[in-house]
């Protein structure tokens, strides 16, 4: 019984708990409930993943597709949640990161936000998560828009809550709000065009109805609007302007979820529309999507990494690094072959682990030192060995050093580019790694090879309730660099599914 309703429950559990939050008092209760809800969602996504994936049941089986008509209104009239190999994987990433980050949140939130606001924080937090989970499962383009807006509105609030530590968070939030709304507006216009041509909003239905309409100007226009709208949402260069401020000044755990997961959901919708709704033929053969994205992905990797090198604040450095990492994902997307797509999807997974883990580390540093300037980290290698080891391990992952999961993603991306004969793009991926060496090493050198300042002399290792969750994520990113068969297997399954769709 419950098994059949999993897709709905995954979203509804955090949504309902979010609504309960404001009536809870102060103390740890909101955190406890939020953690339970997020872990419940995570557990359910694992079950769902096992139901969908062929890989986990029996390697020979093909992935299943689960359709869940909400309120039993049949498609294409009703609203549908539709889970296949692609979004089961993304869903797993979203739920997994949310669960770990929520578990970590207690001390970090108590430190960053006044006690009377904590319950509202968790309310917005769960709305944000349930929005992201909903977007991922939605089989209906208008619903995607609605859920994107739910999660985005919640995230504007969450970013603004960074104001208790840094007033610039307000500016970051308002920028994010304006650009996010414009992006969503573009997306909605695109959806409107598609609807005016086909009269349907259901993705599966759209896909069959659009097939004869590939020459239609309105469809091409719709695609352009959708692409631009989603590029804003996923912060693809040059539409990334909102990201560094929003991610750099938000409370650390919000940055962890924004950088690790939220922008990936935008990327996921791009995959969804390009491959399953419009089809490879339309997106990559008829329109020059490939070369356009190559250009912007290359610029994202190079400019993002270069700007990251120049940052003096750890969180902003990580934020610019995310701009570059989104470039990798977009690059894999635009290669549109099996290795490229696998690389992009596995990077969604791997980068989520690394970057969320690193933002949690930044949160620990903020908790102990009250700031995130890189200079303040001098000599902490001895004072906070576990935290700084996590920082180093996560950083090595961003570089893509072998035996970290970043290496696996880059392996696939470079193979994908070489498969297509696009050697310059393969080189760009590797140059991105070299730039990452510089921005990661800049931090590591200060942490381990510069003597501690007087203010840092009394710093001690952070509590385990903060260090442990950070190490769960960083440790997982190391594990999936040593045995990548699960992560890359699921990503490969999703990539094959996408390529079989046209």
């Amino acid at each position, binding site marked *: 019984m419950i098994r059949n309703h999993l897709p709905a429950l995954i979203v509804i559990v955090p949504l309902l708990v979010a609504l309960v939050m404001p009536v809870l008092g102060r103390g740890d209760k909101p955190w406890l409930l939020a953690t339970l809800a997020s872990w419940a969602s995570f557990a359910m996504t694992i079950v769902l993943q096992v139901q969908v994936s062929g890989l986990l049941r029996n390697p020979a089986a093909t992935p299943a597709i689960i359709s869940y008509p909400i309120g039993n209104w049949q498609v294409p009239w009703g609203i549908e949640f539709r889970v296949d190999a692609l979004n089961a994987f993304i869903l797993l990433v979203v739920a997994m990161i949310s669960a770990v980050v929520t578990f970590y949140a207690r001390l970090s939130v108590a430190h960053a936000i006044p006690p009377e606001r904590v319950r509202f924080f968790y309310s917005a937090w769960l709305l944000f998560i349930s929005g992201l989970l909903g977007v991922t499962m939605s089989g209906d383009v208008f619903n995607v828009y609605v859920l994107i807006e739910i999660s985005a509105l919640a995230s504007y609030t969450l970013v603004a809550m960074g104001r208790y530590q840094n007033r610039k968070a307000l500016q970051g939030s308002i920028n994010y709000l304006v650009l996010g709304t414009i992006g969503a507006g573009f997306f909605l216009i695109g959806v409107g065009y598609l609807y005016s041509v086909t009269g349907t909003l259901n993705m599966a239905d759209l896909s069959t109805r659009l097939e004869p309409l590939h020459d239609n100007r309105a469809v091409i226009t719709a695609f352009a609007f959708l692409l631009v709208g989603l590029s804003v949402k996923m912060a693809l260069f040059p539409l990334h302007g909102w990201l560094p401020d929003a991610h750099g000044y938000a409370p650390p755990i919000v940055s962890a979820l924004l950088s690790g997961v939220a922008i990936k959901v935008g990327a996921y919708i791009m995959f969804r529309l390009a491959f399953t709704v419009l089809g490879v033929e339309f997106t990559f053969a008829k329109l020059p999507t490939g070369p356009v994205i190559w250009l912007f992905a290359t610029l994202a990797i190079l400019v993002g990494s270069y700007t990251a090198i120049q940052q003096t604040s750890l969180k902003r450095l990580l934020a610019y690094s995310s701009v570059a990492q989104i470039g990798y994902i977009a690059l894999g997307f635009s290669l549109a072959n099996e290795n490229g797509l696998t690389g992009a999807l596995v990077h969604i997974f791997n980068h989520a682990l690394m970057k969320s883990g690193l933002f949690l580390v930044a949160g620990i540093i903020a908790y102990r030192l009250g700031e995130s300037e890189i200079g303040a980290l001098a000599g902490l290698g001895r004072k906070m060995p576990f935290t700084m080891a996590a920082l180093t391990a996560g950083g090595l992952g961003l570089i893509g050093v*072998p035996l970290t999961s970043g290496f696996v993603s880059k392996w696939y991306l*470079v*193979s994908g580019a*070489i498969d297509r004969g696009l050697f310059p793009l393969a*080189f760009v991926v590797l140059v991105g790694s*070299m730039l990452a*060496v510089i921005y990661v*090493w800049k931090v590591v050198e200060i942490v381990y090879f510069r003597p501690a300042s007087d203010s840092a002399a009394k710093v001690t290792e952070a509590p385990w309730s903060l260090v442990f969750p950070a190490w769960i994520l960083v440790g997982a990113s190391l594990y999936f660099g040593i045995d990548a068969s699960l992560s890359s297997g699921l990503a490969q399954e999703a990539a094959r599914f996408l390529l079989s769709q046209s």
Partner: protein
Amino acid sequence: MAFVLVIPIIGALCIALLRRRPDYRDAASVITAVCLFGAVLSLIAQLGVKPFQAWVLFELLPGLRLAFSLEPLGMLFALLASGLWVVTSIYAIGYMRAHHEEHQTRFYVCFALTIAAAMGIAFADNLLTLFIFYEVMTLATYPLVTHHGTERAVMAGRLYLGYLFATSIGLLLFAIIWTWTLTSSLDFRSGGILAGKAENPTLLILLALYAFGIGKAALMPFHRWLPAAMVAPAPVSALLHAVAVVKAGVFCVMKVVLYVFGIDLLHDTGLSVWLMYVAAATIVIASLIALAQDDLKARLAYSTVSQLSYIILGAALANAAGVLGGSMHILMHAFGKITLFFCAGAIAVASHKTKVSEMAHIGRQMPITMSAFLIGSLSIIGLPPLGGSWSKWYLILGAVDAAQMPLVAVLLVSSLLSIAYLLPVVGRAFFASGPEQSHGHEIHEAPLPCVLPLCVTSAGCLFLFFFAGEVYEFLAPLVQR
């Protein structure tokens, strides 16, 4: 097989645990080295029985394994690195104590980890394993290069990481992934894996990516990191930047030539002719730069750059004599150069002199050290009765076989140049008539743990002259069809 990887790692742990007891810690370092050498020796017996039998640690992705296997060249490199580690760890105790260095525990731990990486490289069964340990080695040696923590050391460390990571990620990894997409295999196999899988322009580019991508081989123009790394303490320069690290580089080049391309492929297509001339240019240019260096260690470093290209040249010649000469030179040059660095360190310990121009009279004050320096120099130059003469002999034979007469000339000129940059040091030390020392205290030989190792290695140079035949026989399977 597992032992040779595990022993240095356990050794590193023991060293770290014994950080409060310097005597036990240093003993642990020596014991680990001896155990490792024993373990490597015991592997020789298995070499003939099961070459290329892979011992798989785990599988990263389907077909991409972390695996190890035995073959003669790797065996030679492992023997060399572990054997000289024994000598160096004794030397290090003398040097580090006499110099009152700080962070000695970190030093010994990183040293052991570097050797572990060297073992991984030596026994790697495929390019991925090789690459992983290659990167581990870069990371493990970084704290050794920046050991002193001064501004200059940190800058040198940046240069070190910058060159090595830029080449390995940008070029070597590119080449490896490209090879993977072409052949769906990264395994080292006799005769190579690329034959028949790719055509000429691709192969040419791949060879260039490998040759320059293996930055540790210090092929010009990617050699600048090596002189910079000389800020490290002398044992590091001796073992790592004359033996383990740089030899790992040329070893990788040799391995790629033998087991990825296959010498037949290179020989038949003439792909590697350009590489011969790049190597020849490196040999000559680096020797000329060495002439101009006043700092003794910098002079030796440029000499290393030059000598490494002998080995690359041997690989590029892609015939039996060239490959064997190059492989023998890995061994011969190691003994010669480690002796020279030991001497440079001993001089620094005893007299705090690092410049060639200050070395007058040193020969009379430190006769044993300077005699060893002479022996090491002669071996590098390639004069009998010292080991270095054989490898040069085979390299010249290889160049003749390949009908590359200009290269024969380069090899001979380079020997003359090495006379010009090495022997004046000895000459000045023994015969120069400069002002007598007026520092007040008398200079005499460095402590025994410093002097003993350099006697052992210089004796090794002599020994290798007479046992070169055995080395040749040992390596001969490399080029058997």
